[in-house]
C-alpha cells in the first residue's frame, strides 16, 4: 500500500512498515531544546543517569530570552552551557538566533526525524523532514536513548491550486487554512502540502507554512522536496544533504482539502486564537501600538526584503513602535549587507539581536495594558506577549510593514511598487 510522507519517514526510523494509529519507537536523527524547555530536560536527563547524548546532533538553543533579561534566566542559560560542556551536545548561544531557522540553515535534512522541545519544531517539515515538537522529558529520553515513542499520525492532504496574487504570501495561505479548518482542525494529524502553488513558493516561504502546522493542531507540516529544496541546501553548502522525499501516488489520506489561492486576500488573525481570521478588507483600520517583524515564522531574509521594499523612503507612524528581529545571524548579516538595516533605521525601527524577540513575552517589546500589536509571529493567545491585557494580531511581513507606516492595520497592496 502506498505511503504518505509521514508514513515513509516513520517506517524508516522505526525499521518496519508502520500504519497510522500504531505506537512505535523511532530513532531520532536530530534533537533540540531551548532555554525555556531545556533546563527541565537537563534535570530529567541527569535523574535518569544518562552520561552522553545519542542523536547525531543534540542542540541546546538559547533563543527565547537572549540576551537574558533577568538573573533567573541567566542561571537557566548556564544550565544549558554546562550541559554542552560535559556531553556531545552543542549550545547555540546569544546572537545566533531562533532554533528553527538555524536548523533549516545548517542541520535538518530531508528524510530526517527531528524532535524538539518547542512546538514550532514542525518548521523542519518544509525541508521534507518529519519534524515535531514535544516536551522536556521526551527530549531527555531522545538525548539519552536516541529514540522516542510516537503514535503514527493519519495525514490530511492540502492541495494548493491556482496562482498566488501579488501582495499575498505563504503566511496568508497558512492563516487562511487555519481559519478554515480551525485551531484544532488537524489535531494529532500530519498535514502534507502539495500542488502547483508550491512551485511559486521559495524554500523560505514554505518554511512559514510548515512552521504554523501546529497552529491547526498538527503533529507535522510536510512538504515534498524538489529543485527549490536542493537549491536552498546548496546555498548553505549542503547540497549533499538533499534527498527526494514525496508521498507514493497511491498514498492514503484521511482527508483531502483543495485550496485555491487565486483570489486570496491578505489575511489577519484577530485576538485571541489563530483561527480567528479576517480578510484584510474586513480587518483594515484597527489602530495598533506596536509592529513586530521577525520570529521563526517570518524573520527570514526574504521577509525582511519584503518589509524593506515597503518601508523604503518612508517613516513609521509616530504613535507606534516598530521592532525588527532577524531570525538568525545569517539573516542579520545578509540584511546588513543588503542595506536593509539602513531602510529600517531611517523608517524609525528598533533592530534587535537574532532570536525570538518579543514573541514569547519575556523581553524586547512586552505589551502595555490595552495595547495592540500587529506581529508576523505564529501565535496570538491571551497573554502570549507578556500581558493578558494586550491584544495580538497576526499577519504577513508585508501587511506588518504597511501597517507600521499608517499606525493601523493596512492592506499592503496599497504600498506595492
Amino acid at each position, binding site marked *: 500500500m502506498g505511503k504518505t510522507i509521514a508514513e515513509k519517514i516513520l517506517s524508516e526510523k522505526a525499521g518496519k512498515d508502520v500504519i497510522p494509529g500504531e*505506537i*512505535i*519507537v523511532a530513532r531520532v536523527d536530530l534533537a533540540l531544546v531551548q532555554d*525555556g*524547555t531545556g*533546563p*527541565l530536560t537537563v534535570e*530529567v536527563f541527569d*535523574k*535518569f543517569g544518562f552520561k552522553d547524548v545519542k542523536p547525531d546532533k543534540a542542540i541546546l538553543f538559547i533563543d*527565547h*530570552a537572549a540576551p537574558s533579561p*533577568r538573573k*533567573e*534566566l541567566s*542561571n*537557566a542559560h548556564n*544550565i544549558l552551557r554546562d550541559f554542552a560542556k560535559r556531553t556531545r551536545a552543542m549550545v547555540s548561544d546569544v546572537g545566533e538566533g531562533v532554533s528553527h531557522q538555524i536548523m533549516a540553515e545548517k542541520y535538518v535534512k530531508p528524510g530526517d526525524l527531528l524532535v*524538539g*522541545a*518547542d*512546538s514550532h*519544531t514542525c518548521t523542519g517539515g518544509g525541508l521534507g523532514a518529519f519534524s515535531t*515538537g*514535544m*516536551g*522536556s*522529558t*521526551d527530549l531527555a*529520553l531522545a538525548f539519552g*536513548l536516541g*529514540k522516542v*515513542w510516537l*503514535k503514527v499520525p493519519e495525514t490530511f492532504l492540502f492541495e494548493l491550486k491556482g496562482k498566488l496574487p501579488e501582495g499575498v504570501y505563504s503566511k496568508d495561505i497558512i492563516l487562511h487554512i487555519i481559519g478554515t479548518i480551525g*485551531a*484544532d482542525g488537524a*489535531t*494529532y494529524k500530519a498535514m502534507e502540502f502539495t500542488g502547483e502553488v508550491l512551485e511559486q513558493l521559495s524554500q523560505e516561504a514554505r518554511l512559514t507554512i510548515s512552521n504554523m502546522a*501546529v497552529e491547526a*493542531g*498538527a*503533529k507535522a507540516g510536510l512538504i515534498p522536496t524538489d529543485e527549490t529544496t536542493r537549491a536552498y541546501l546548496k546555498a548553505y553548502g549542503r547540497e549533499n544533504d538533499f534527498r527526494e522525499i514525496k508521498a507514493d501516488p497511491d498514498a492514503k489520506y484521511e482527508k483531502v482539502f483543495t485550496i485555491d489561492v487565486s483570489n486570496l486576500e491578505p489575511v489577519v488573525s484577530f485576538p*485571541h*486564537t489563530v483561527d480567528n481570521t479576517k480578510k484584510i478588507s474586513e480587518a483594515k483600520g484597527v489602530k495598533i501600538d506596536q509592529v513586530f517583524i521577525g520570529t521563526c515564522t517570518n524573520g527570514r531574509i526574504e521577509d525582511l526584503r519584503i518589509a524593506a521594499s515597503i518601508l523604503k523612503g518612508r517613516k513609521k507612524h509616530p504613535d507606534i513602535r516598530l521592532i525588527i528581529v532577524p531570525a538568525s545571524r545569517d539573516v542579520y548579516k545578509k540584511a546588513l549587507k543588503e542595506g536593509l538595516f539602513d531602510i529600517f533605521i531611517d523608517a524609525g525601527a528598533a533592530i534587535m539581536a537574532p532570536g525570538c524577540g518579543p514573541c*514569547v*513575552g*519575556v523581553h524586547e517589546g*512586552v505589551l502595555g495594558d490595552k495595547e495592540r500589536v500587529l506581529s508576523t509571529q505564529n*501565535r496570538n*493567545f*491571551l*497573554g*502570549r*506577549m*507578556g*500581558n*493578558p491585557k494586550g491584544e495580538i494580531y497576526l499577519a504577513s511581513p508585508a501587511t506588518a510593514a504597511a501597517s507600521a507606516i499608517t499606525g493601523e492595520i493596512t492592506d499592503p497592496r496599497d504600498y506595492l511598487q
Partner: protein
Amino acid sequence: MILKGKVWKFGDDISTDHIAPGRYFHLRTNLPELAKHVLEDAREDFASKVEKGDIIVAGRNFGLGSSREHAPRIIKLAGVAAIIAKSFARIFYRNAVNIGLPLIEIKEADEIDEGDVLEIDLANGIVKNTTKGKEYKFVPMPKFMLDVINEGGIENYISKYGDYKI
C-alpha cells in the same frame, strides 16, 4: 485506577499561555513557585482554591500552544488528579501522559458542572457523575500510554523497564 474528585470548569481553547503564562518564564526552573500561577489567566482564584484530587473539566482543544511541559506539571503539582475535555491539543496530551497526569476525552463535557463529583475508571473507560447520577464511556488510552500513567509517568516507567516496551 479509580479517581474521585470535584470539578473545576473551564471553557474552550485553554492555551499553555493561560496555564503557565509567558510573563513567568523565569519561574520555569522553580515549578512550586510557577504552580502558584497555574491557570491564572483563565481563572485568577484557581491556584489558591484548588484542592488535591480535584478534576478539571474543559471544552475543546485544551492545552493548545507551546510545548512547555511545565503546563501539565504545574497542574499536577497543584493537586489536580485528571483533566476531562472535549479534546486536547497534541503536545499537551503527550506531556501529560509522560508526567503521569490522566487525560480523558468525552464529547459530553458540557453536561458536567462546576462542583460536581466525578469517579473515573481509567482502565475501563467510565466517568460517573455521582452528583447528577450520569455515566459516560470513553475509549481508554492505548496500553503503552496506560502503562506509563499507571507507573506515575515515563520517568518511573523507564527506570523500571529500562526502555520503551512497545
